[in-house]
């Protein structure tokens, strides 16, 4: 299979203040899975938006099936057979699964009514082909996010796309769902579909990718057969420098001082009698599958969700936490996994977000905000965390994902918190930014801060933490010393098996 499906030649695209793409090239063959990688801001998303008709290029040409194309909008691209699955879901929560899949092209009866029956039958067949156990008649918002993502994939596939663009498709999926997705991808490849696969999770590429193209800062860097390039080379080309390690060296040793004691937290149906300690200077991991209650545990400690019983002690003293502001007043910070929905005021400026949780520190006369002090504080964090922004007063919406994450981190660092709970801190951000965030955690721990890191990426748990809590369906299955445990052991507990005699893990 060598016939060319799609060729991008010397495409450029600028936005006010940024040259997002500078004469980049890319090609896709039939029956190929071609990974496109690069750090945040490398221009991947912009190119995908051009291919799917959302943006139009300033210069360069796109040849699709041998003909130059100029898509004017997303509908034209999709009609031509280029489908895209965005990182963020583009579904209507109040419609059913089938209605979502066939939205805008519902099958009609002879009388012109929507043929609900046919739609449900077709959807069921489609979902069946993907081995998905989803009722097509169920309302979308009754499904967990991971299932919604699978619906998004089904929707794109239902259009018989010849080119399928997947932008971080696995970021919200569990291990087993990822396997399902890979099966689907293999299947599609065998049928001759060309797939452009964008992911920050470089480790998963090896399962599916044929070729890989690397972008950096809006420029084309290299294309290679996946088999002919090492992970190290990929990362070096992505960041433009050599990264010695994926994780910083853990220099500090947690102290014996109990910083936080969590006792018998219960939230009916969600958290079942959870107790643990956090020591000063410790990085404590929380592992578990999707739905195990990891974020819920963090939110309970933080006062964001009500709990039925249980208590939280800091420095041996019982805290009264009824709301996030109580938790914050006691030095606890929570960095939500959904930074856009829960972490940032995206319409507001960078400086305003950084100081949001600690405005008194830049205020005079009780309440008046000092712009100068605020900008100084912001400047410090922009420099320390290497936030890439054209100005300190840039609207946060215009920053890339990794930089947005850093803004959230800056907000809590500025608050001078003693306990920081990071919920999936590196999801959707690039290698360089990841390392910066790991380094930051390490520095915080060294300063005596207690860090809790919730993560779905086990290498990150193993690489960064001192101890790991493993949750399964709201229950604390095990508290493990990171040094003495393994990926397999953690997965065993996460899957609900107890003890060493458990069955081998199934991912």
């Amino acid at each position: 299979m060598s016939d060319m499906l799609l060729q991008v030649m010397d495409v450029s695209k600028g936005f006010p203040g940024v040259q997002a793409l500078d004469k980049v090239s890319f090609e896709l063959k039939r029956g190929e899975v071609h990974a496109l990688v690069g750090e945040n801001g490398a221009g991947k998303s912009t190119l995908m938006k051009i291919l799917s008709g959302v943006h139009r290029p300033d210069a360069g040409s796109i040849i699709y099936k041998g003909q130059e194309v100029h898509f004017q909008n997303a509908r034209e691209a999709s009609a031509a057979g280029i489908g895209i699955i965005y990182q963020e879901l583009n579904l209507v929560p109040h419609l059913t699964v089938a209605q979502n899949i066939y939205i805008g092209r519902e099958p009609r009866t002879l009388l012109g009514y929507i043929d609900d029956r046919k739609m449900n039958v077709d959807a069921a067949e489609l979902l069946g082909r993907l081995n998905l156990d989803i009722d097509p008649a169920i309302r979308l918002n009754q499904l967990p996010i991971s299932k919604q993502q699978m619906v998004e994939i089904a929707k794109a596939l239902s259009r018989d796309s010849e080119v399928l663009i997947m932008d971080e498709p696995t970021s919200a999926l569990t291990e087993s769902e990822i396997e399902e997705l890979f099966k689907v991808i293999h299947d599609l490849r065998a049928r001759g579909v060309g797939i452009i696969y964008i992911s920050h999770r470089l480790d998963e590429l090896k399962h599916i990718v044929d070729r890989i193209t690397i972008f950096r800062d809006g420029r084309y860097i290299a294309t290679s057969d996946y088999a002919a390039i090492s992970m190290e080379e990929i990362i070096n080309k992505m960041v433009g420098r050599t990264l010695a390690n994926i994780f910083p060296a853990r220099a500090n040793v947690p102290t014996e001082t109990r910083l936080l004691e969590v006792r018998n937290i219960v939230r009916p149906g969600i958290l079942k009698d959870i107790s643990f300690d956090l020591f000063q200077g410790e990085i404590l991991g929380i592992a578990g599958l999707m739905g195990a209650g990891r974020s819920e545990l963090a939110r309970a400690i933080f006062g964001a969700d009500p709990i039925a019983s249980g208590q939280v002690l800091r420095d041996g003293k019982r805290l009264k936490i009824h709301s996030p502001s109580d938790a914050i007043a006691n030095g606890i910070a929570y960095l939500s996994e959904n930074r856009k929905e829960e972490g940032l005021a995206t319409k507001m400026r960078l400086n305003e977000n950084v100081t949001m949780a600690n405005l008194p520190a830049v205020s005079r006369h009780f309440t008046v905000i000092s712009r100068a002090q605020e900008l100084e504080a912001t400047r410090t964090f922009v420099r320390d965390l290497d936030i890439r922004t054209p100005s300190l007063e840039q609207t946060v919406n215009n920053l890339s994902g990794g930089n947005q994450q850093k803004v959230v981190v800056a907000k809590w660092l500025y608050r001078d918190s003693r306990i920081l709970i990071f919920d999936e801190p590196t999801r959707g951000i690039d290698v360089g930014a990841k390392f910066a965030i790991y380094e930051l955690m390490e520095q915080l721990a060294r300063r005596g801060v207690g860090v809790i890191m919730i993560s779905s990426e086990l290498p990150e748990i193993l690489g960064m933490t001192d101890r790991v809590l493993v949750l399964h369906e709201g229950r604390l299955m095990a508290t493990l010393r990171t040094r003495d445990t393994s990926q397999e052991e953690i997965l065993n507990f996460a899957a609900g098996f107890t003890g060493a005699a458990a069955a081998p893990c199934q991912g």
Partner: protein
Amino acid sequence: MSNESQMAALPLAKTGLPAGTRSQRLSLDKLVIFIVLIALFGYFSMTASNFFTVRNVLTLALQTSTITMMGIGVTFTIITGGIDLSIGSVVALSGTVAVMAANVGCPIWLSMVIGLGSGVLSGLLNGMLITGLKLPPFIATLGMMMVLRGVVLTITNAMSKPAPDAFGHLGNDTLFKVSRQFPGIAYPVFIMILLALALGFFLRKTRMGRYTYAVGSNEEASRLSGIKVNRVKLAAYMISGFCAALTGIILASRMVTSQPNGGVAYEMNAIAASVIGGTSLMGGVGTVGGAVIGSFIIGVLGVGLTMQGASYFVQQIVIGIVVIASVAVDQIRYKKKLGK
């Protein structure tokens, strides 16, 4: 953390990162509508012979002060992502309450304070319905609009009552009166200016003001940042109620009577003024300055068209078109920005 000391060691020039430029901070939107306002002013000055006279400009400012003050207040609620439909009824309520208080022998100042109190209380009630019962602001304030109107009509039997003469000073006296040619600037105009300056500063420079934007921009992120969201919302509705009550008292003072039927549909003009001024009904965006300019666009159109001989009905059409156009232009520009 030792932010302060770190920062001290870091002169501005060293990192080289600019603060936002002035034009970035003063949004272009406000500049555009300000130009529209000036253009309208110029147009009417040339086409209506008596428009650009001292007397007329002073009258214009006095008339527009009503909608301006209400527009400023409602802007706070819209920025939090809400709305306040009850302010027209608050206008009637506060004026009536103040006149009644004056008529039973309260000193004038005290009766006015009581009137203001009734507005703040109404705002508090709005806010409690919205934060406590989690009602959508549209519904809560729509209900309150009806309830308050009903209360006013009931306690007055729908009859206007004259107030003591002294009650009329606030609305009818002027400052800097020179001669017939320059009758002086009316107190309500000063009050409007002071209110705009004070609330503009509050919104732009204080913590509570910042929180107002934060809550409207992302309520959950605000809550998780420790902002007491309910308190911010209560404050916004109380400010809105206060502004409407101030308007109501000034109107009652100008007429030297209570006006139980006054203020009907005023909320719509106030919301329109705010929206023309760039406030987004989605929340998180809006300024006091914008609301003032928006109010004056409506005011200038009203007076100018009247002097040109256009009927009240035609004015309604024109103002409606301006509301639609101002938001449409915004939308088109927003899309352009996204690169569509």
